[in-house]
């Protein structure tokens, strides 16, 4: 009988531990009770439960710790200071998949707050264990591990390098090929976070063969997956010409253009970002984009969005037009100027207006023909208003002035210059007058007499050979 009593005591204790772990896990899911838990010293109490005999108690304790660390920076720091990390990962290879999932959750919850915490995780040797989790069969475990890698690699290049040195990249590329959508999403976002810091890291990701799989996933119907895939490709392409060419060789055009028509705003934004990162390197790449009809798609995308989502599209047009005058003419012919004007007028944010002003300047600065197209669209008064406006930011004013200067120096279309004469400040006026002084332009002979007369009466320095009054 006493044996039974002895065993009963042990059973009660086990039940009590299990109930405690469950209850703490439940409470930790509610934000209002976390402060109470913290003041009750929950982290120190959960620590021995991590090494408990019963697996379910270990799992529940890990889950509770993960939820606590997820909530707050201070709790995460408390978890790290309590020395939980070595105990969490010491027996990880032999554990079952629920424990691995919970451990990956804890690591991710700690790493997401700050680079120092992520560094602490790396120093405790958790990366090797996470790689073991990535090799596991269960997709949930892989997802948790790649999510943790993503949060670690996000902060700075050194941490990304640590993740790459642990050998995570080939496993992540394998994860992308798995059928589960959530796993693909997380793996794509992790690759994006790794490759965004430097060209060497992007090269490592490319060397593992990620581009082909990422490009295959662009037509996938899931919106969140598309966001991550496009973001990953744009982070790879942004570093150098070779990487951008590799991305283009994966035959993303014209599939990427369908992403610009997606119903999800961020898919459009990331698609436009990808095209921008490719267009900005060389004229040949911009030529490729124009030839595949990308410019038209980007222009439609700008027309249909509002707000920050438009910004990459505007910058794409600016980069394409900046490379050469033929490309600039191609942008004009694709009806690029009206949406940019609308952007300039409608948008409230200064950086979007600055980008639109810059893009218009790049379009109009090449030859007189280009400047005429820009001037005919009635852009110059808007630019002047922005430049003169007191509540525009410094950056916006500088960009508006440069755009005005570039366009005005080539503009020979005098009716467009005329309204500016009345309102322009001296710094702009000198360019306008310079244009008037450059002599009779062929277009000016088509003008009617009154307009002619008013031009003659307008502020114009006589430089000798000026037109005689008719």
């Amino acid at each position, binding site marked *: 009988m006493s044996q039974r009593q002895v065993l009963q005591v042990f059973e009660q204790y086990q039940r009590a531990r299990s109930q405690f772990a469950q209850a703490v896990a439940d409470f930790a899911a509610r934000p209002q009770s976390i402060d109470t838990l913290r003041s009750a010293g929950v982290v120190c109490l959960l620590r021995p439960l991590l090494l408990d005999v019963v697996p379910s108690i270990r799992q529940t304790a890990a889950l509770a710790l993960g939820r606590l660390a997820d909530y707050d920076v201070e709790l995460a720091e408390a978890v790290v200071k309590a020395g939980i990390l070595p105990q969490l990962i010491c027996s990880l290879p032999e554990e079952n998949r629920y424990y691995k*999932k919970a451990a990956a959750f804890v690591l991710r919850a700690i790493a997401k707050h700050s680079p120092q915490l992520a560094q602490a995780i790396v120093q405790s040797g958790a990366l090797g264990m996470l790689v073991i989790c990535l090799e596991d069969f269960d997709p949930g475990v892989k997802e948790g591990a790649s999510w943790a890698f993503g949060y670690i690699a996000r902060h700075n290049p050194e941490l990304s390098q640590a993740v790459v040195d642990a050998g995570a990249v080939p496993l992540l590329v394998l994860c992308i090929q798995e059928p589960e959508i*959530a796993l693909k999403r997380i793996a794509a976002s992790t690759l994006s976070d790794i490759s965004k810091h430097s060209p060497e890291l992007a090269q490592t990701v490319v060397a593992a063969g990620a581009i082909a799989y990422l490009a295959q996933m662009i037509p996938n119907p899931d919106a969140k997956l598309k966001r991550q895939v496009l973001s990953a490709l744009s982070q790879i392409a942004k570093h150098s010409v070779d990487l951008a060419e590799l991305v283009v060789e994966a035959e993303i055009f014209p599939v990427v253009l369908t992403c610009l028509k997606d119903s999800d705003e961020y898919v459009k934004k990331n698609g436009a970002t990808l095209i921008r990162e490719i267009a900005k390197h060389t004229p040949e790449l911009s030529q490729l984009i124009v030839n595949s009809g990308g410019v038209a798609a980007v222009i439609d995308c700008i027309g249909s969005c509002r707000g920050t989502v438009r910004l990459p599209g505007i910058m794409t047009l600016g980069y394409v037009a900046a490379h050469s005058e033929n490309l600039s003419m191609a942008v004009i012919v694709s009806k690029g100027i009206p949406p940019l004007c609308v952007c300039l007028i409608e948008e409230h944010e200064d950086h979007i207006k600055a980008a639109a002003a810059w893009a218009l300047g790049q379009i109009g600065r090449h030859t007189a023909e280009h400047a005429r197209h820009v001037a005919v669209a009635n852009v110059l008064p808007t630019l002047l208003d922005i430049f003169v406006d007191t509540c525009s930011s410094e950056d916006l004013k500088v960009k508006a002035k440069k755009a005005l200067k570039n366009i005005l120096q080539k503009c020979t279309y005098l009716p467009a210059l005329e309204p500016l004469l009345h309102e322009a400040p001296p710094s702009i006026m000198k360019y306008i007058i310079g244009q008037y002084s450059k002599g009779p332009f062929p277009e000016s002979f088509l003008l009617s007499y009154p307009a002619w007369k008013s031009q003659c009466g307008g502020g114009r320095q006589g430089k000798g050979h000026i037109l005689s009054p008719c």
Partner: protein
Amino acid sequence: MAAASCGREQGASMAALARLQERLEGLREEYFLTNRAIDEDRKRKYKAAVKIQRWFRACRVQVCLRHLTKMVILIQKWWRGYLRRKHFREIVEIQKTWRGYYVRKYIHNFYALKKYLKAVSMNNEFVRHELQEYTEMKENEEKMKDLEKKDKEKKYQARKMHYLLSTKQIPGIYNSPLRKSPDPMELLLQKSKPLTHRKQPVKSPFADELYGWPTCKEPPAFVTSLPLLHADRRKPQGPFRDPAEVLRQRYKPLEPTLRARESMYSAPGKAREPTRREEWRNPIHDNEFLPFSSYHKNYEKYEPSLFKSDKYGQEAYGTKYFREVYPKKWIADKDFETLFPSIALFEKFGKTYSSTGQIV
């Protein structure tokens, strides 16, 4: 005296003459040498004078010549410069026209640029059209999905409310007698099968946290610990097994083999597909596993059953006919006929009310 003096003089002169004659050879030689020296001297001086004069004349001539050559060079310089410049202008004229032509034709070809821009705008139109079609297609798909979802929802509701279907006697709520035709819901109810009772799945202790994970759809395949029991649960009396054990056995979920659990589309599954196809395609023998040649002799014979066979052959009952009829045992010639009428109330069945519930 005179003779003495003459003699002295003659003697002196004779002495002088002797001395002179002695010296004559020497004198001759001396005279010769001196003349030679003077001659040479004169020649040398003459040569020197000629040299100097020559030199001087040469200088004068050279100055003259230099002046002349300078003039000549100047003239030639001007002339050649003029010639080359003229030539140069001609060359530049040719090169200018050539380069202008070449640039306009090949590099900044205006017409090619126009053609290119036209091609770009046509391509843009095409791309815009395609993208428009794509968006429309996507929208249609969305609408179809919504419609399907609503349809499914409706069908599920109909299945749940199957009991509201009208019977022949009592019209249902969707089949009011005042309507001309039954409600569409009625038709739906008629088409749907009733739902079966589904048992509540047991909630394992891990159910809560595992549903939080995005990919974990079902509770764990094996239960590693005791499910929590109430502490004050009293054991029922009698020869019952431990309830925890029973529950574990009862709710042990399916654990298919790896081969069955693995999806067809996973990498090993896909890798097996070609071998399957090959096996189907390349068998050596089309009728695999045909029995041996003497199969039909031994195994395909018909063996009649013992119950139906008698001495003279087989009984036809059971194969040829099934109904036993003994006309000799019949009492009367005719068969039974119904004498009693059916119950009166049952005659009115379906006729007391108006014809509702009839399918139009």
